[in-house]
């Protein structure tokens, strides 16, 4: 392990910029910690804490200069690696025929360096990798950005009130998908762990010193404290079958009474990958564009087929989302679709809590709706 002081952290960001990376990091805007393009350490939050609970997110100021004493805002790596809207192909009409070409790359031609992603969000990227890279067909747009990206993870010392990564086995300590992982020890500096050879090279370039036993013990204490202060818990045993065998559980109708089907949960979720494929044409009628846009399984048209929306009710849609996330995902991709970040709980306008919904089903496992639902 290495020790980096505050000045060393600034050198790290400068080094990544000098190497040609576009820095993506946390910054405070509109009362939330969001991810955006940053210039350097000055753009990061300082002395900011989060209060997160079901349907609740607030920032509070503290008289210190800690940069990472919070869990995460609504953004995750998804917004950059799998943007909400992206052109896939350009189709031109020529001599009565048509020609389809991959669309030009989006906004930047510089590789991205992510600063300060938590273990949950690094795991979320690994989950999306299974969708966009490791399936029958790899997505070239995602692959291009993902291939060159650099990840500076930060171990979480202040989990949010809706966090349950410890239950999902995805945190709070960074264990995968990072080039460098930091633990913010105090206002003076970070403990740095190397994840890859290129992480090593970057640390070497900026100059660090070996960490002391005391600093390593501090980091361990911070990580252990994070596990103990995790806001939520979830039992994950018996997945996927728990949700498969409870497709007709009365809880689905009950939660549908509260759910607004607004899609906040699917937008804030760092792993939700469903999208619409939308075709448009320019005004000349010569060039057409195929675009993908984030879609939510909470919309009625999501499941539209000729003559009907398959999941016409909120009940069916909530069941689809939760069952996909926690159960079907395991069959589809060999991993849960949930990394326990709790964003879907925090950003739900009515505070629906997935851990509570799953617990409710578990407590009354096998219950069925009284009335037969017509097919």
């Amino acid at each position: 392990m290495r020790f980096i002081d505050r000045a060393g952290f600034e050198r790290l960001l400068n080094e990544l910029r000098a190497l040609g990376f576009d820095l993506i990091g946390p910054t405070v805007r509109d009362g939330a910690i969001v991810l955006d393009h940053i210039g350097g350490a000055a753009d990061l939050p300082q002395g900011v804490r989060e209060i997160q609970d079901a349907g609740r997110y607030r920032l509070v100021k503290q008289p210190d200069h800690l940069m990472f004493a919070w869990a995460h805002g609504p953004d995750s790596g998804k917004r950059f690696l799998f943007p909400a809207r992206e052109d896939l192909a350009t189709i031109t009409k020529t001599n009565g025929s048509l020609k389809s070409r991959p669309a030009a790359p989006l906004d930047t031609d510089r590789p991205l360096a992510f600063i300060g992603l938590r273990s949950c969000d690094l795991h979320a990227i690994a989950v999306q990798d299974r969708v966009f890279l490791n399936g029958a067909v790899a997505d070239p747009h995602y692959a291009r950005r993902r291939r060159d990206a650099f990840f500076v993870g930060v171990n979480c010392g202040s989990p949010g009130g809706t966090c349950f990564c410890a239950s999902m086995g995805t945190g709070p300590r960074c264990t995968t998908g990072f080039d460098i992982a930091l633990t913010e020890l105090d206002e003076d500096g970070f403990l740095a762990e190397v994840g890859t050879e290129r992480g090593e090279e970057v640390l070497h370039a900026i100059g660090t010193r070996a960490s002391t036993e005391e600093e390593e013990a501090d980091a361990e204490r911070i990580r252990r404290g994070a596990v103990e202060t995790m806001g939520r818990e979830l039992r994950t045993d018996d997945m996927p079958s728990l949700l498969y065998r409870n497709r007709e559980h009365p809880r689905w109708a009950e939660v549908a009474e509260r759910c607004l089907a607004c899609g906040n949960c699917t937008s804030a979720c760092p792993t939700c990958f469903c999208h619409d494929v939308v075709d448009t044409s320019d005004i000349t009628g010569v060039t057409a564009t195929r675009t993908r846009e984030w879609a939510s399984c909470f919309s009625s048209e999501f499941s539209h087929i000729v003559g009907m929306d398959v999941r016409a009710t909120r009940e069916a849609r909530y069941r689809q989302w939760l069952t996909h996330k926690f159960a079907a995902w395991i069959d589809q991709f060999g991993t849960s679709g949930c990394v326990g970040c709790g964003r879907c709980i925090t950003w739900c306008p009515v505070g629906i809590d997935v851990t509570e919904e799953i617990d409710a089903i578990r407590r009354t496992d096998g219950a069925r709706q009284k009335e037969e639902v017509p097919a």
Partner: protein
Amino acid sequence: MTAPALLSRTAAGFTPPLAGDETLDRPAVIRRVVRETPDTRTFWLSLADPDARAAYRFLPGQFNMLYVFGVGEVPISVSSDPGLPTRLAHTIRSTGRVTDAIGALRVGDVVGLRGPFGTPWPMQAAEGSDLLIVAGGLGLAPVRPAIYEALRERHAYRRVIVLVGARGPEHMLYRGLLDAWHEWMRSRRMEVSLTVDVADDAWPYGEGVVTTLFDGARIDPDRTTAFVCGPEIMMSFAIRGLLARDVPPDRVYLSMERNMQCGVRLCGHCQFGPTFVCADGPVFRYDRIADLLGAHAL
């Protein structure tokens, strides 16, 4: 996008295959348009590029994504003979924005084509058994290639039984072909029975839903493999009828329909339980999805 020289090695955890051209349309020319019913036409397409045309193969039950310039894409099963893959029939009912736009196209117009996608009817699994095809309405289109295939390899199957239902005579697809097949049934040992929910005076076949044809078909449960295709409600009744006649659940196959937008397991719209219908289907063995069919609005 170029990685900095120092960092040319791939990022943490990165192990990608890169995509082929599955997401890009290939131009296909409309060679012929046949009116099947008042709202349904069959479009015969040829890939414009000679090399692509010569290389294209499909299996019975697979589908293509057809693209109308500037309007959008729809998944459409190939309904022609897999042995003649240079001309591809797509039987399309005008029911929405894209299918209406396709309906307005003429011979010589060009559409985009991606595919083929999806799982085929398991012709080999049916070999040596009685092949029973049960189709309802537009559901005849995705199984027609299986019928062509069975006729070409007629010796591989025992009986070939085709049972087709439609709402009325004017909604029966491929009427001329079915009449011809019906006539052949003695010489080619293919048994074709047709029925409509509501007949008219000119209708020479049966009246009633497609399951009313089961009794006359003399289904032998010990040696039948069934391919079922049609609206979901029709398939569930047909499968119930087959199981009631002791056809084993693992000898019944069906073709599912869900919203398909990408064809390559990425967009998520076609999920049906843990399956992606575009890639794990559309053809499923019944026993493998029986629990999913039992749940409402999945």
